[in-house]
């Protein structure tokens, strides 16, 4: 088992180099000059531009730039962005916020998705099931920005139950609204996956045998239906964690959350290679580790899956 985990961790290295190289190249290949773009309509003197180019190594060929980036990375020196702030410091500011947001969203979608999915599955074809299915379809169909603005207006502004915007001081409490919006979309999928899986397992022979043993209904449901139904759901949750971390640009903008999504978006607009690659590198790590955790959870959920050699 430990061998398996080590091997998986070692796999991170080629994945990491591959993704950063790709992202670095894409930023490099973006049309336009990032330095000129920075100054807009009032271009500075050629000397200033040349000096800035040299400062950010933009006068070097691609391979040298990438090599310097890697070297800096391994010496834990991520450099400064175009506004002169150290990249490491801004990553330290934005990532905790995004992690909080993502975890909160993940909890919301898991708790509600699994609970509703389980009940709907157990009551297949009844009113609750039908209602939840239609409702989840509606949620899936509404785009995030519509959902975001509506909830912001309704719950944040008119009812005043939660803070409509987050601002600089993000904490679990004032992130509840963006986390809900973020979680709602995946919630619908988690619900449907759980429901389908429960319906499949509900009719399994071992569930009937468990009932025949004299177990109470709640025990049968929890130990024999729910646990066996979690495998596809866990897969989806693991994959969605990555999405929650990196893809929350719309939600973060609506609720003014100073997180990764916003920062990444700005950096891409400005062709800020080092910032983009630094953020993406961390996201890659999150993805790889989240997937490793999912695989380990698999083995715990289903002992037939064993990771040896």
């Amino acid at each position, binding site marked *: 088992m430990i061998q398996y985990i080590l091997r998986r961790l070692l796999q991170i290295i080629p994945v990491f180099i591959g993704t950063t190289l790709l992202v670095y190249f894409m930023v490099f290949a973006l049309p336009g000059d990032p330095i000129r773009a920075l100054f807009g309509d009032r271009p500075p003197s050629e000397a200033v531009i040349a000096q800035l180019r040299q400062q950010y190594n933009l006068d070097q060929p691609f391979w040298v730039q990438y090599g310097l980036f890697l070297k800096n990375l391994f010496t834990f020196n991520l450099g400064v962005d175009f506004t002169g702030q150290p990249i490491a410091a801004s990553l330290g500011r934005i990532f905790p916020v995004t992690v909080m947001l993502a975890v909160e969203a993940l909890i919301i979608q898991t708790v509600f998705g699994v609970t509703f999915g389980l009940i709907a599955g157990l009551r297949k074809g009844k009113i609750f099931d039908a209602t939840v299915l239609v409702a989840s379809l509606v949620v899936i169909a509404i785009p995030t920005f519509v959902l975001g603005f509506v909830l912001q207006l309704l719950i944040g502004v008119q009812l005043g139950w939660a803070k409509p915007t987050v601002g600089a001081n993000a904490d679990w409490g004032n992130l509840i609204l963006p986390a809900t919006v973020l979680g709602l979309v995946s919630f619908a999928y988690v619900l449907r996956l759980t429901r389908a899986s429960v319906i499949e397992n509900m009719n399994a*022979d*071992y569930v009937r*045998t*468990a*009932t025949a*043993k*004299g177990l109470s209904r709640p025990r049968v449901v929890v*130990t024999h239906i729910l646990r066996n139904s979690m495998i596809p759901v866990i897969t989806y949750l693991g994959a969605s964690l990555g999405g929650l971390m990196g893809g929350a640009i719309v939600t973060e903008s609506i609720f003014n959350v100073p997180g990764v999504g916003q920062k990444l978006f700005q950096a891409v607009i400005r062709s800020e290679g080092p910032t983009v690659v630094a953020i993406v590198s961390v996201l890659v790590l999150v993805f790889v580790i989240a997937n490793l955790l999912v695989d380990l959870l698999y083995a715990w959920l289903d*002992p037939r899956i064993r990771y040896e*050699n």
Partner: protein
Amino acid sequence: MTTADVRISEADLADKPLLEIRDLAISFKTGSGEVQAVRNAHLTIMPGETVAIVGESGSGKSTTALAAIGLLPANGRVSGGQILLDGEDISHAPEKRMIELRGNTIGMVPQDPMSNLNPVWKIGYQVKETLRANGRPSGPADVAKVLAQAGLPDAERRAKQYPHEFSGGMRQRALIAIGLSCQPRLLIADEPTSALDVTVQRQILDHLETMTAELGTAVLLITHDLGLAAERADKVVVMYRGQVVEAGPSLELLQNPQHPYTQRLVASAPSLASRRIQVAKELGVESDELLAPGTTPRGAVVVEPTMTEDVLQIQNLKKVFKLRSGFGKSTDFTAVDDVSFSVKRGTTTAIVGESGSGKSTVAQMVLNLLQPTSGKIVFDGVDTSTLNNKEIFAFRRRVQPIFQDPYGSLDPMYNIFRTIEEPLRTHKIGDKASREKKVRELLDQVALPQSTMQRYPNELSGGQRQRVAIARALALDPEVIICDEAVSALDVLVQAQVLNLLAELQSRLGLTYLFITHDLAVVRQIADHVCVMEKGKLVETGSTDEVFDAPQRDYTKALLNAIPGARLMLPPEVA
């Protein structure tokens, strides 16, 4: 009811039925309304007694048993009658009452050991939760004791393993342990061994019998095998299309079946057939000719000279599989080890053995679907390994397979005409009109109406599908047909029909069969020669009569002894 009536003495208890099913009716809600699955079912089980319900699939036998433990599927309900347990009607008892009864008073051993244990929990836990739910001590020692009683060796260590680490027989023992762990007064055993090899089946049933006798447990045994039922039960109840058609003490019912269905069942029960053929031969019964022409002299159905020619010779056949064991290492597994035998034209040779004995691997090599590691297969004088692609194509035309699963071996998207016509088209035989004529002839030969041509596999029953598979195999006028467990998945009566059909086709067309099966009872009915395989080796070979009447090896004897009903003596006039 006065208090005096409530106190029941031991003697009284023995006189009163433990379970009484009266006028039971069960219906299922389906897309097209309510369907009656069981009607007017009657059944009485006295304490400590074993009663068997016998019937084919769909006869309502399992449904009746499930109703007794309150486990009908969600769309089923008891629509009439009573299920009396110690006089208490539990047919509509609230779920709470049923939870009290299950495990403690009524236990169950389900049919398929592969799917009835939850794969994600350790065996020990699955026993433990049963004990706990029924308020019994459930420590590790108690769990181990329960498992050990069910005949699981090394129970303490085994309890820590998961179901996938158990063989089928061991899983069934674990399920028996669970079923009997709370010492119920009634055990419902639903085909408890039908998924297992005969020898394992016998061990398990013997053990179940001993255990229930010790505990004084009454058993409701559900089975499709009349021989097994008669051997294991005090009373037999025969169900047919949802109704109890006959019931009575086992031997009496076997010897003197009243209902026409029971009579047919007795006549074609494969487990009793070993006697039947013997008797038939002695009496020189005409119907004997329906069975394969064999070594014993009888009516000249087949042209004599062809019978001496070896159509198939298997010489020192060996197959080694490489099993991956990680890090690029591999261990060798010898599936077939130095097997030699020959098959005479126009006869039937059976290869028997338990699962894992290598018999199907031999069949696959004979079909040229798998390359032997060493050894030769000589078909009609030619070593099949020397054939080029074109010759293999021609070879396939002469050697055709029929596989076990009539559900899996027919393409569900092809109608029957296309299924049977396909080999003709592949081998570019005839034009459209002549192919259609041929398909019609083939359907006649396998006794299917020509209207079947336009239907699809899912519209046919298992027996009809297997007839289609036979028709497809016959389409190219092959000389040899390899039947890999071709009748194992069929109900007994259907099985008998298909076996008769195969025998009839053999005598008419001079076919040669290589019959792969685990079922010795079937072998007795169809084969002229028997090859017994154990762990990849051929341990015994001879004519069917020799092997059955005087088996040389202990393994063969064990296999023969394990045929359910083999110990039952039937008077000839019944058979």
